[in-house]
């Protein structure tokens, strides 16, 4: 390739994309400096749904904060709750029964599938295809029904407790999950034929918005954004937590670095999550779901603690600074999309607006999770 020709842009204009824009999946705003169809410069403005979870964390007791995590990322809520309970358990030395951990893993993986399904639908809708969204949401409804039967809510679960779970799963759930797995596999085949193979779809994504591994590192990208750029990074593997070491699953990695690679990673992850659910159901041990002895009031000893988990959107981390009191002294929520979205400004420079918004879709954004 020749050395890139640096262009002095023609007269530019500033285009607001968002906050009320169909492509931004919420109240994200990108101020784009455009030269015709090309983006000269983009500045992402966030904070339109900044609700100050971290301040709430400081003002509320540990159990009271549980409900906030699921409002952060309403699509893959359980993964976030998982991280929070893990860090508090680690800090206060609570031992979780094995059954509870297995159930947690199963639920998180189901939630991950639901999240990826929604992303899949929304992403294809960004590209202008409507029906896949409907199909994906039909499959998602099955998961939501299962999760609702156990947790009582459809989106914003408040299911994990420090030390265990709110309530146990029953045979109905297991039967439903077992029924669900082959159905989902069949659906995946359908999506593959309908969307993945589609020439229009591929043309829109192939080679678009390349992200180098170096760039991912500088911005701290995770999830499919990193894995689509050839970085084999998944917290479930790199820093195993919970019962993930017990499961046999693959981390899909693609080296193309383009939007299609990110898409493929997520689609493959659905299959891997199905495998985890399958194994989890097979290996599910009996026993209690709450530990026998658990402090009545959670008061982790002073110090600071960090826990990262792999949520549907990437490596989510909670830094808990405790002063030994009932409330956390400081609760930092490291959200993966925050880093992934940050990439956008630099990466979309010089792209056409259509490609840039397809790229934005491939980042899998959940805005309240960025803004917290």
């Amino acid at each position, binding site marked *: 390739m020749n050395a890139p020709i640096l262009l002095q842009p023609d007269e530019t204009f500033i285009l607001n994309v968002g906050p009320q824009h169909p492509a931004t999946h919420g109240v994200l705003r990108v101020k784009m400096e455009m030269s015709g169809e090309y983006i000269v410069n983009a500045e992402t403005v966030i904070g339109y749904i900044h609700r100050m979870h971290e301040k709430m964390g400081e003002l509320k007791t540990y159990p009271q904060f549980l409900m906030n995590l699921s409002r952060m990322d309403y699509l893959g809520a359980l993964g976030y709750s998982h991280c929070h309970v893990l860090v508090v358990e680690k800090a206060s030395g609570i031992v979780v029964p094995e059954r509870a951990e297995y159930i947690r893993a199963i639920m998180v993986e189901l939630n991950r599938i639901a999240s990826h399904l929604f992303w899949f639908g929304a992403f294809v809708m960004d590209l202008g295809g409507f029906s896949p969204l409907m199909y994906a949401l039909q499959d998602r409804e099955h998961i939501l029904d299962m999760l609702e039967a156990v947790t009582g809510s459809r989106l914003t679960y408040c299911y994990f407790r420090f030390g265990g779970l709110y309530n146990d799963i029953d045979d109905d759930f297991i039967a439903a999950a077992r029924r669900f797995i082959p159905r989902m596999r069949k659906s995946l085949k359908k999506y593959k034929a309908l969307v993945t193979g589609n020439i229009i779809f591929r043309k829109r994504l192939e080679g678009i918005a390349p992200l180098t591994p170096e760039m991912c590192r500088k911005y*701290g990208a995770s999830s499919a954004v990193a894995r689509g750029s050839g970085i084999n990074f998944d917290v479930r593997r790199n*820093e195993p937590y919970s019962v993930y070491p017990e499961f046999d699953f693959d981390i899909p990695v693609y080296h193309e670095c383009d939007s299609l690679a990110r898409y493929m990673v997520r689609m493959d992850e659905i299959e891997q999550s199905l495998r985890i659910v399958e194994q989890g159901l097979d290996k599910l041990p009996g026993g209690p779901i709450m530990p026998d002895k658990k402090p009545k009031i959670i008061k982790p000893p*002073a110090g600071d603690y960090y826990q990262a988990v792999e949520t549907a959107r990437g490596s989510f981390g909670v830094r808990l*600074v405790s002063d030994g009191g009932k409330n956390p002294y400081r609760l930092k929520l*490291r959200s993966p999309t925050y880093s992934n979205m940050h990439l956008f400004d630099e990466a979309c420079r010089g792209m056409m607006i259509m490609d840039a918004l397809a790229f934005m879709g491939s980042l899998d954004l959940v805005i309240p999770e960025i803004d917290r």
Partner: protein
Amino acid sequence: MICDKTKQALQSLFPKATPEPAESSPAIPSSEAQEKKAKAPAPRQDGVVERDYAVHGYHLDAQVSPDQLLEAVSILDEAAFFIESITGVDWIKENQLEVVYDFSRYDFDTCRVVIRTRLDRNNPVVPTITGIYAGANWHERETHDFFGIKFEGHPHLIPLLLPEDADFHPLLKDFKA
């Protein structure tokens, strides 16, 4: 493996070779040690400490002074660390603000490094690391929003999460809405 290397590299920042504080030796993973620490809130010395991963969730904990920060971060950059997050903690009793930088690695040689630096609460200024990690941009802006910490040399230090005309810093402990 990489942890040791990084530790050595970071330790080279402290020529005085400060001894590791005894109370946080990794051999004592119990929470009692922590409570002791809480009771004796002597401000920690600058230096590198190895932590128990199983308890704290990270391997290395380096406290540096603000002017050592860039050097420390460059060491991590060369060792192919990626930036996880930047945040602050308001130690109002000690009249200090702490800036905490989290770093981790993409490969399986896991090593989480925390770099912290303590600033005067009345004049919190710290050099920016956006020159090394472009991704620190938003994190620093966010920290500026919440704590009012000024990152010297930051290209665009305006409120990110808060409204554009915000002049308050909500995560300070003495903040009142």
